[in-house]
């Protein structure tokens, strides 16, 4: 076993130990620990990705002295290492971009707790990505849920507390459904290890035994993870949670936490239940339908919104709709497009949240559009980053969003039939709607200011630098995306 194959284990355990270690540290030390941790995890996972590209084979890693069905196990493939690298990169950038706001908005004595949450959230993201055991996934979903709620409420004002309460209620309902689903799946297969369940489910599916139970399990698990990733109509908790929490939290929630649940759902579809079983239960049709509705209604809500951060939050609902639409096609190409869009959206949305908060900062802390006029000149990095993110989300060529739309369209055309028409129509309508609210915002931040701008502090250099880097990453994703697409395709083939 090559030493580099320890990377998944080391990155999970290192994040957990850093979280525990930070409890004894003051805020500045805890902050450095988190930043160094995410950089180290990023570097390790990039090395692992390179290694996986060379060997081209996935492997399992025994957690302890007992082989898989008896002990715990994690599994690493190309897709997992790519996702882990993306998550670590975005965590690093979201933290760096929002450090000044964390300092400002969170009580001094509680800042080390914030960084503990970030460390443990990274641990749970990595564990969800790498796990090969359903129960391990559940345990780390618990950590993820609590960390997310704490990230929302760490800025202690009324909006955030209400949003955190709402988040907690919806997510605990989802956790309950998921746990029931996992328990029932264990009841009919007798396993918790993903590959073993897959075998048993294939047998059950072939013999037609426990057919009802299998359908209910698929429904329970899918609905649970849809609630957690805010697919329409479960998006009610999202706008407040993303719109009012501290910008780093909003970036992490939208780009990391909701994405990790979607990734887990894809993993469960492919590695636990089997895509053909899921398609036969008709669950993909439902995901497809709600994905399309979410795409349109999310954008409509964003157009009606007058608060720039809540507008970006509603746009998340629409983008999650895109991802589920790809997943709902149920084909290999559709799922690859969904994963690709997941990465593109994660990169763009964290940047949009951070840059929106930067723009608000230089406009007298008011989030409406009129005071924002001219803010693109006052905070150049945020203006540029917002423009890049908006263009990517609208789907302008040379930016990532364009390519994911092309991939969605081509996978729908491969699928054929009425669904291809629906996808193309939905893509067209949604692009139009996206243009309406995103370009409107971009134009308004570059219009000359019509009213007197209140005094503001010069934007922090660190967050400006982080925003420039993020903009560069987004442009790179848009222009050099072919290797990424191929890596995702190869990784998805390693899944089964």
């Amino acid at each position: 076993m090559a030493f580099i194959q320890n990377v998944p284990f080391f990155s999970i355990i290192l994040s957990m130990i850093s979280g525990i270690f930070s409890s004894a540290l003051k805020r500045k030390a805890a902050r450095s620990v988190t930043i160094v941790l995410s950089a180290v995890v990023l570097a390790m996972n990039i090395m692992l990705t390179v290694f996986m590209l060379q060997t081209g084979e996935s492997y399992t890693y025994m957690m302890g002295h007992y082989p898989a069905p008896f002990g715990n196990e994690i599994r690493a493939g190309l897709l997992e290492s790519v996702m882990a690298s993306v998550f670590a990169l975005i965590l690093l950038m979201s933290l760096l971009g929002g450090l000044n706001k964390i300092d400002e908005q969170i009580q001094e004595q509680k800042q080390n707790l914030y960084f503990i949450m970030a460390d443990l959230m990274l641990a749970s993201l990595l564990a969800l990505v790498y796990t090969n055991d359903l129960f391990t996934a559940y345990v780390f979903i618990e950590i993820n849920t609590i960390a997310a709620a704490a990230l929302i409420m760490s800025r202690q004002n009324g909006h955030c507390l209400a949003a955190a309460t709402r988040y907690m209620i919806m997510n605990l309902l989802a956790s309950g459904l998921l746990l029931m689903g996992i328990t029932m799946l264990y009841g009919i297969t007798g396993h918790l290890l993903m590959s073993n369940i897959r075998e048993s489910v294939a047998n059950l599916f072939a013999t037609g035994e426990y057919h009802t139970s299998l359908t209910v399990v698929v429904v329970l698990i899918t609905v649970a993870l849809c609630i957690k990733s805010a697919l329409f109509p479960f998006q009610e908790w999202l706008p407040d949670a993303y719109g009012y929490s501290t910008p780093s939290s909003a970036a992490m929630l939208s780009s990391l936490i909701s994405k990790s649940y979607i990734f887990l759902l894809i993993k469960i579809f492919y590695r636990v239940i089997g895509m053909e079983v899921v398609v036969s239960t008709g669950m993909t049709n439902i995901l497809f339908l709600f994905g399309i509705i979410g795409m349109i209604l999310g954008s409509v809500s964003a157009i009606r919104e007058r608060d720039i951060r809540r507008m970006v939050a509603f746009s998340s609902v629409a983008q999650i709709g895109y991802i589920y639409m790809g997943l709902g096609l149920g084909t290999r190409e559709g799922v690859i497009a969904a994963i690709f869009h997941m990465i593109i959206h994660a990169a763009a949305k964290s940047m949009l949240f951070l840059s929106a908060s930067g723009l608000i900062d230089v406009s007298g802390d008011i989030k409406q559009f009129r005071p924002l006029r001219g803010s693109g000149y006052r905070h150049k990095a945020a203006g540029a980053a917002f423009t890049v993110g908006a263009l990517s989300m609208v789907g302008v060529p040379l930016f990532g969003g364009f390519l994911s739309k092309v991939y969605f369209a081509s996978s729908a055309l491969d699928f054929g039939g009425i669904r291809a028409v629906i996808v193309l129509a939905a893509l067209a309508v949604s692009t139009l709607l996206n243009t309406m609210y995103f370009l409107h915002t971009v134009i308004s931040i570059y219009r000359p200011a019509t009213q007197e701008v209140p005094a503001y502090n010069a934007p922090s250099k660190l967050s400006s630098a982080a925003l420039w880097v993020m903009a560069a990453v987004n442009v790179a994703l848009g222009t050099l995306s072919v290797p990424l697409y191929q890596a995702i395709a190869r990784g998805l083939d390693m899944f089964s």
Partner: protein
Amino acid sequence: MNSSKPSLKQKFTAWLENASMLDDAMEKDLAKGSDLKAQENEKAVYEAWEQRQKNRHDTAVQEEHALYERIHHWTMTGGAKTATILYRLFCIFVCLAVTAFMLMMVLDMPAYGNANSPVNNEVSARYIEKGMEETGAVNIVAGMILDYRAFDTLGESTVLFIAACAVLTLLRIDLNRHGLPTEELIAAEADDRHHEPKDDVILQRSAALLVPIILLFGIYIIFNGHLSPGGGFSGGAIIGAGMILYLNAFGFKATGKIMNFRVFTVITFCSLMFYGLAKTYSFFTGANHLHSIISPGIPGNIFSAGLILPLNIAVGMVVACTMYVFYALFRKGGM
């Protein structure tokens, strides 16, 4: 062909000469000169038109107001009632549907205790048959959670830790920047003095009798976790309950001597660090097939079962502290 309109050829030549037809028309108009009367006439027509528009706008606004009033009235009375009834009916329908599906599923699931159910497979067989031999723990459950599936349990302990941190984020009331009590803190203290029991003789006497026994029992359950039912989670909960009883009887002044945030931080930090590092060693050696110095020992001895005993102690301390801190934070936001 109308002679006043330029032909295609004329247009083309004009275009070649770079002159517009519009210019000609404009020049003609200018040559005619201004007609003052026509202008006045135009003004009157425009004003009449404006007045008509204004009237139409006003009636539209009135109608809209009337409509809005009607709808508003309806939503506040009949509409609200209808919506509530529909919503409740829908909720009942959803609940009944989910219940029905779940019951169908129960009928479909393998019967409880059935020997042939899929749960009774090689995995549980190995836990039962070889569990004691491989882990050294007489208590199979302890062997399962702290040795076979130790990674999940590490996750679970972290859940407790992160829950404690989240409650601290939410509820802890701190001294301000200069180390002085804030108004919020003073209010919380006053509220606590006002509402909580103090110098309750019955409570104090029974607590003095019970607390040592409870703590001792909790310690026994933790230390015997690998030999008999129990372990870190249950023993820690008992110790935590004992500490809460002591706090209720004697107040924060008495417990503050042995238990404050500093102690809490030190205990959770040391326990979880020990857990994390010990398990890192064990996972790393296991995965890389290296020799591990941890041996199961002789099953049945108190010092046996490798890491299970120390891990139980670590988990127990974290659980006890977390319970106590939860109680203290919910009571007055501090210790």
